[in-house]
């Protein structure tokens, strides 16, 4: 903990220990790549996955890293304003991040700059453009049906 605080300095906005093995760190969007390099390469942690969440005010992505020698899970929280949904892609650094970045892209509509193949992963090809299932303001099938009907009939 102390080591991380010293190493990251002012890049670390907040650190919170929920239980001894579950640690959450808040970082800025611009510093993501540098911080991930520290966790993934220097500290040799395993990239578990990322969780994209639609918070009330902004989008959040949590990058989960597991330090298998101690059993601790470090979750890096990055907040993205809803009017500028962009973040650096980690795929060039971690090959295993390709799938999850594509999933967050289709589910929440967050764009990953520098991703080699930012296409849909799970959703069907005929899924309508601009509908993001995991967004909080998405109303579901019934709403979609009405919107399609309105589009067709004016």
């Amino acid at each position: 903990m102390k080591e991380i605080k010293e190493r990251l300095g002012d890049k670390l906005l907040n650190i919170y220990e929920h239980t001894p093995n579950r640690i959450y760190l808040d970082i800025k969007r611009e510093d993501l790549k540098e911080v991930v390099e520290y966790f993934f390469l220097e500290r040799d942690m395993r990239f578990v996955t990322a969780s994209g969440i639609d918070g009330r005010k902004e989008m959040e992505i949590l990058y989960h890293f597991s330090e298998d020698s101690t059993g601790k899970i470090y979750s890096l929280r990055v907040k993205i304003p809803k009017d500028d949904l962009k973040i650096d892609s980690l795929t060039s650094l971690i090959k295993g991040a390709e799938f999850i970045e594509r999933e967050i892209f289709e589910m929440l509509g967050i764009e990953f700059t520098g991703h080699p193949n930012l296409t849909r992963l799970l959703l069907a090809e005929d899924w309508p453009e601009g509908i993001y299932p995991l967004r909080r303001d998405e109303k579901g099938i019934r709403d979609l049906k009405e919107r399609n009907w309105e589009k067709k009939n004016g």
Partner: protein
Amino acid sequence: MAKAVVPIGPYHPLQEEPEHFLLTVEGEKVVDVEVHIGYNHRGIEKLAEHKSWQQVTFLVARICGICSTSHPIAYCNAVENLCRVEIPERAKYIRTLVGELERIHSHLLWLGLAGHFLGYNTVWMWVWKWREPILDIFEALTGNRNHYDMLLPGGVRRDLNEEYFPWVRKELGEVKKNLEMLSKAILDDPVIISRLKGIGVLTQEDVKNYGAVGPTARASGVKIDVRKDDPYAAYDLIRWEVATCENGDLLDKVVVRILEIFESIKMVEECMDALEKVKGEIMATIKEVPPGEGIGHHEAPRGETFHYVRSDGGSSPIRHKVRAPTYVNLPTCKATLPGSQLADAIIILASIDPCYCCTERVAVVSDRKKKYLTQEDLIKLSWEKTERLRRKYGR
């Protein structure tokens, strides 16, 4: 030489699961592979946001029929982490016992399929025959052959009947004896060895890059196991070892799984010994789930299953993220497959023990005419069909 594309899928002819691989081949050699998932996407993460904390346990059990207790263990770990609750000791042993029995049946299932993919149907028939007693044990202990539904956040729902334990010990002894015979037969057979040794090698570097987990990583000599690294349930109360191999080829992936079955049989026996001594409660009460976040993971038969939940203090999670082991193991085929022979492709793709049900979780009912069907539509369609049949057969 001209390149050709060989499609496997969208529905795998051997594995009978929805997966889609596009293999680019030059003659008999595979030079590139493209993976498509999403053929059977079910929307479970979204659905979980509309269920109560208890109901989600049964929802995640239905993510996959084979790991139907792995997802609930990981989910319950996450909720208990969020609430900072410790479960009773007896419940810990019961969770471990069910989890390890599941590993035995899942690894046996894979071992049989691996034999089938290699063209050794004897291995397939034998191993699946020996898997049957494990399912009988499940039926006796939990009431179901699959989808045991034993867990709830805070503990387990049903206690085990200890009268069955002597019989379970006898059956497990039989499985162990048969498996010893089989492992000798496999390691003695020069044809099987030549099909497996040095094929589809996954290096330690690729394990790190792709974040591979479970037996896939351990066959390459990466000693990671959630049960040991971040113990939960009774994994720190019983004695056991993490099985690893070195080479990361197909043979090591078989060996590591066989070693794990032996280890799991030992663990189940130890859990039964402990359960005969440890009595008491099996459920800790969770009155309400406070706002916050929780992370839980479990070493499923295929590797680490990871669950993240977030609560706002309400009756259901506001976000529930599921990461199944195949999700990170599947992309490793981009490292193992290119350069191999087309005939080996099937077994290399199957060597990670893929589970597509787990990988594709999130769907909307839509037909080709882009018409969206609601529940009422579906019920109406079903009534109409019943009516049609009734008229046809005059009943």
